């Protein structure tokens, strides 16, 4: 078993934990953080492939950088939306956000 | 001069242009909308009449055909060594022949009459006429399209305006009727789409040897399908062991499935026996001009589709299923007729009589000979005209009396002699009186089927007797007998109502006395199918 598999497994574990958090947690902030965790798991994959992949190159690292940037943007917008919603509804519980239903 | 104008596209697009124009007109001007709708319905009528006059049976629809590729999507399947490209083409292909032209004519006539009859529409003219014109485009498209995908699009295009026309301008249970309409026809469309996909995926491709390899193009082109399925050496019909690709083989089983799916799809539209209930609701709940279109043209789209796609593309399956089809036809005839005999609501009588009459069309198709097939189309056209006329009368009647219950009406021949006369004529046409168009269609269908299935015809003929019973019962119930006091003062048809009635009656008489104005043309349309059937019979 080479190292790549180990990294990928770790990433999978983290991804699934993040996913579980997204699905189960009520607090919107934790949901956002769990998404960050999932993104990070992906980053780990990218970086691992960048070293142990079929054609090792820096592209993997570069993409993980881009991903982080996007994650940052997402976090910023996410928190902003959260704050806006909180103002309107005085709650950050995801299960109370059922606007999609209406 | 006219040779260079794309006539078919003009027919197709005129109502669409009209619809846009109606939408642009200010909301308040009700009469503007009416005039616009009428003008843009008359344009196709004039054009189809011109087509009718200039149609040469020798050349068929070839001079008018319009064909170009509309969309071309490359498929990135792994190409073999000698295949240079693989494309999916969506063609814009319009054409006419002896089968579609009569129906086209019917469509334009009924549309104009319905447009005139829409004077009784009391609310939201603008949307009404816009949808009405859109519906017209869809109907013309269905009869003109020679590409399966295009056909499907137009077929669906008729559903949407119909849904709103029923749902917004109908009577009391209009929403329910509209829903029922949509559910059934949606189901039919799904079946049709599946059948079309089967056909296109297996037989709908052309392979052209180019300089750098074979170019394969998939398309829903009707001509391509027709050639591929009829040609035993075509790829679709070759044994999979020879071609090595099991997925693209149009096996007999698959053909059977396609046929059954098409039968369901168009059977719902026609409608064939267990699928008829949606139509009853549409007949009773939709506004009369819309029912004119519905009963007059939309049901015929099912007939047309059945003949065009099920019969022409899969003649062998048609032969296998012809007995079933005939039995279904007989069931339709008798079931519809018996039920029409006991209805208290005139519109329901007409609805069930439509079921009965469409059964005769099925008999014509099932006969598999030229007499029966022509009878089927003839009966379609004639029933279209007759039911349009009948619903025109119903609309006028309802406008005056506010009811269409046979029990509540009576003796109207006293106060409305003109309307009653027309109603009686229409009823007579409906029960197949010689000299009116209904007889020719019925007679040809029965004559055709009798050549192949004698007993079924003999049973089906009973429907003619029952037709007399229900027509007389309802028509006499409305026009004869003592007149209730409240109907003594109602006025006869106004001029604007009388004009379409007289026009339709004249057409019914014309077709009844000189059927050859249409049969010669239809003859040419059916030649190809008959050749195939005869080939099979010979080989």
């Amino acid at each position, binding site marked *: 078993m080479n190292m790549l598999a180990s990294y990928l497994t770790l990433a999978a574990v983290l991804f699934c934990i993040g996913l579980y958090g997204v699905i189960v947690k009520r607090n919107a902030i934790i949901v956002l953080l769990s998404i960050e965790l999932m993104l990070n798991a992906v980053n780990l994959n990218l970086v691992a492939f960048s070293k142990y992949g079929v054609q090792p190159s820096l592209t993997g690292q570069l993409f993980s950088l881009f991903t982080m940037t996007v994650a940052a943007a997402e976090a910023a917008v996410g928190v902003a939306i959260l704050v806006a919603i909180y103002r309107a509804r005085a709650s950050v519980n995801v299960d109370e956000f059922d606007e999609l239903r209406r | 001069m006219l040779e260079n104008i794309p006539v078919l596209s003009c027919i197709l697009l005129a109502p669409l242009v009209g619809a846009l124009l109606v939408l642009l007109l200010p909301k308040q001007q009700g009469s503007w909308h009416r005039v616009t709708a009428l003008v843009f319905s008359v344009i196709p009528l004039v054009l189809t009449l011109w087509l009718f006059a200039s149609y040469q049976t020798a050349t068929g629809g070839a001079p008018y055909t319009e064909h170009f590729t509309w969309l071309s999507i490359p498929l990135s399947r792994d190409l073999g060594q000698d295949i240079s490209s693989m494309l999916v083409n969506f063609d814009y292909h319009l054409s006419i022949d002896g089968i579609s032209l009569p129906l086209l004519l019917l469509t334009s006539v009924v549309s104009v009459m319905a447009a005139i009859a829409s004077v009784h529409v009391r609310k939201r003219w603008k949307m009404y006429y816009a949808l009405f014109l859109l519906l017209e485009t869809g109907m013309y498209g269905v009869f003109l399209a020679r590409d399966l995908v295009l056909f499907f699009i137009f077929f669906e295009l008729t559903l949407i305006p119909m849904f709103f026309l029923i749902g917004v301008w109908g009577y009391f249970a209009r929403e329910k009727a509209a829903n029922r309409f949509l559910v059934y026809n949606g189901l039919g469309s799904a079946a049709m789409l599946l059948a079309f996909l089967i056909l296109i995926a297996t037989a709908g491709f052309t392979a052209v040897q180019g300089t750098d390899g074979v170019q394969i193009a998939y398309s829903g082109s009707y001509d391509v399908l027709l050639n591929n399925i009829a040609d035993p050496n075509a790829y679709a019909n070759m044994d999979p062991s020879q071609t090595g690709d099991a997925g693209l083989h149009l096996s007999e089983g698959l053909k059977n499935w396609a046929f059954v799916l098409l039968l369901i799809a168009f059977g719902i539209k026609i409608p064939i026996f267990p699928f008829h209930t949606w139509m009853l609701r549409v007949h009773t709940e939709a506004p009369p001009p819309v029912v004119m279109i519905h009963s007059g043209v939309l049901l015929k789209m099912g007939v047309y589709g059945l003949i065009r796609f099920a019969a022409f593309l899969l003649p062998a399956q048609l032969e296998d299923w012809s007995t079933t089809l005939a039995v279904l036809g007989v069931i339709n005839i008798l079931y519809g007729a018996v*039920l029409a005999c006991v209805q208290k609501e005139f519109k329901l009588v007409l609805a069930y009589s439509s079921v009965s009459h469409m059964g005769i069309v099925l008999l014509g198709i099932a006969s598999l000979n030229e007499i029966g097939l022509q009878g089927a189309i003839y009966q379609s056209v004639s029933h279209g005209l007759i039911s349009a006329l009948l619903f025109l009368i119903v609309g006028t009647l309802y406008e005056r009396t506010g009811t269409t219950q046979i029990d509540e009406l009576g003796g109207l021949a006293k106060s409305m002699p003109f309307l009653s006369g027309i109603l009686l004529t229409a009823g007579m046409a409906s029960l197949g009186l010689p000299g009116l168009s209904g007889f020719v269609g019925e007679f040809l269908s029965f004559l055709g089927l009798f050549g192949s299935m004698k007993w079924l015809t003999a049973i089906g003929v009973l429907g003619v007797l029952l037709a007399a019973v229900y027509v007389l019962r309802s028509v006499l119930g409305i026009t004869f007998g003592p007149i209730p006091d409240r109907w003594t003062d109602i006025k006869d048809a106004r001029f604007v109502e009388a004009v379409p009635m007289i026009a339709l009656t004249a057409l019914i008489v014309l077709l009844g006395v000189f059927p050859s104005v249409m049969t010669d043309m239809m003859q040419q349309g059916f030649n190809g199918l008959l050749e195939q059937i005869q080939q099979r019979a010979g080989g």
Partner: protein
Amino acid sequence: MTFAQYAWLVPLFPVAAFAVLITLGRGAGRQAAWIGTLASLVSLILSLCIAGERLSGTVDEYNAHFTWLQIGNYSLNAGFDVTNLTSLMLVVVTLVSFLVNLYSHGYMRDDERITTFFAYVALFTASMLGLVLSDNLLTLYIFWELVGVCSFLLVGFWFQKPEAKAAAKKAFIVTRIGDLGLLIALLLLFWYMPGNALDFSSIHNVFTTEAGVIAGGITTLIALLIFLGAVGKSGQFPLHVWLPDAMEGPTPISALIHAATMVAAGVFLVARTFVIFQASDAAMTTVAVIGGFTAIFAATIGLAQNDIKRILAYSTVSQLGYMMLALGVGSVSAAMFHLFTHAFFKALLFLGAGSVIHAVHTQDIREMGGVGRNMKITAWTFGIGALALSGIPPFAGFWSKDAILTAALTHQPLLFWVGAVTAFLTALYMARLFFMVFAGNPRGEAHAHESPAIMTLPLIVLAVLAVVAGFVETPFNGWFGEWVTGEKPEAHTSAMVIVVSVAVSLLGVYLGWLIYAKGTVRRDIVSSRIPGLVKVLENKYYIDELYRFILVKPLGGLGKALAVFDEYVVDGVVRMAGQSAAGLGRLNARLQSGQLQGYALTALIGLVIIALAIAGRRFW
């Protein structure tokens, strides 16, 4: 040039009159009605010319046709034939039609829809003329149906009377049953005839010279189906029920229907396709038996009726039975002869009855009586008609009835006696009718007065014809039969027939005189002894009730049952499917909670399922 070439014009004049009158509608004044009369006069003159030409015997039979409908290799033709038979019918139809037209100017004078009436009469005449002229079965069928619809329109002319409405409906539907038979026979012939020919000359050739081309069973079937058509139109048992009810129409129409147009069509049809019947013994026997049975059956009913027009109607049914009897025993000439004479005296009787009704405003003979005192012309002409119908020599009816009875005696002796009994009954009920209406003292309140000249003129013309028409063929002179059928008639000088026929007729009249005029025999002599019989006769053997019970009711029941089936089973299945779909939708709607995490979970599960499906492929 021959007149025969222009025979197609004969029906065209009435058609033109119809078109003009129906377009003018009520707007046109009463005088517009003369257009119809004029058209029928022109037709009459042309018909007479054609018949005269044929009588001269110098021209061949004329046929002209064109292709009405060409479908592939099949063609349906339309055309007309001018033969002795058709020219005879042309004259009869146009003559009766013209006289009825004249008469109607008086009879319908006060009706506001008089133009409509004349339009219908014109169309009726035209249809019948077309039927007569047709050279093939399809064209004949087309006009056959048109005749039916016209009679429907005219029977229901007074549409506001519920009885008229019911009678019109009944007339149309009952005759349509027969039409179905004809239609199926048409289909059979089309597919079995060599070359798909439907014209009468081909039919004649196939069934006479090429016997065996069509199998015997099929021939019988075709013949019986054609006969079914004739049964419907000519009011034979068991489809006779519409004819008496058709009396709800205006009386001139009854004359037209009973004398020349509608009912004659059935006899004419059988005569026209007689070769098919000749090819099948079974069919011939059926025709003869049905004819004989109808004759005696209707005559017995006629005895017990009290409506003047109904008595005449049943007598028509009975006389048509005679004609069918004649056809069934193989004598076209006798049948056509009786048709010819019957047309005149039956038209006469109906118009006379109309004249009486016009005067006393009732149709019940029990309320009449002594009418003859004030209505001399009507009484005399009616009397002549009654004598002709009763078969008293030398009136026309005697000769034609004699011809039928002679034919019957040679072929089916049993039917001869049936015919003889019928002749007795006929004489009896005609005597009853005549004496109750014209003799004795007035029983009703209305004061009879003679009808205007325009009504009595046709009566006189017809009365003359009813006297002389019989002399075209007597036992000593077979000219008519030879002219019509083209065959030398069998020598028939059976003294027994003449004696029996005259004896029973005279007996009938005498008995009638005794009972209804002199009163030496009590009227209730039968009804007091066997009240049941009279009741049965008065109720027409309960045939109507029987039909209502075995046909109309079950049809209605079936319809109601199917309506329930349609509502709850066919639609119910769909409704159930619809509701289950809606239920599924509600279930899905609950899934559609707006909860983001629920969606995410669903997506995850979907992803897992897809992944499992893809991964699972490896293992099988």
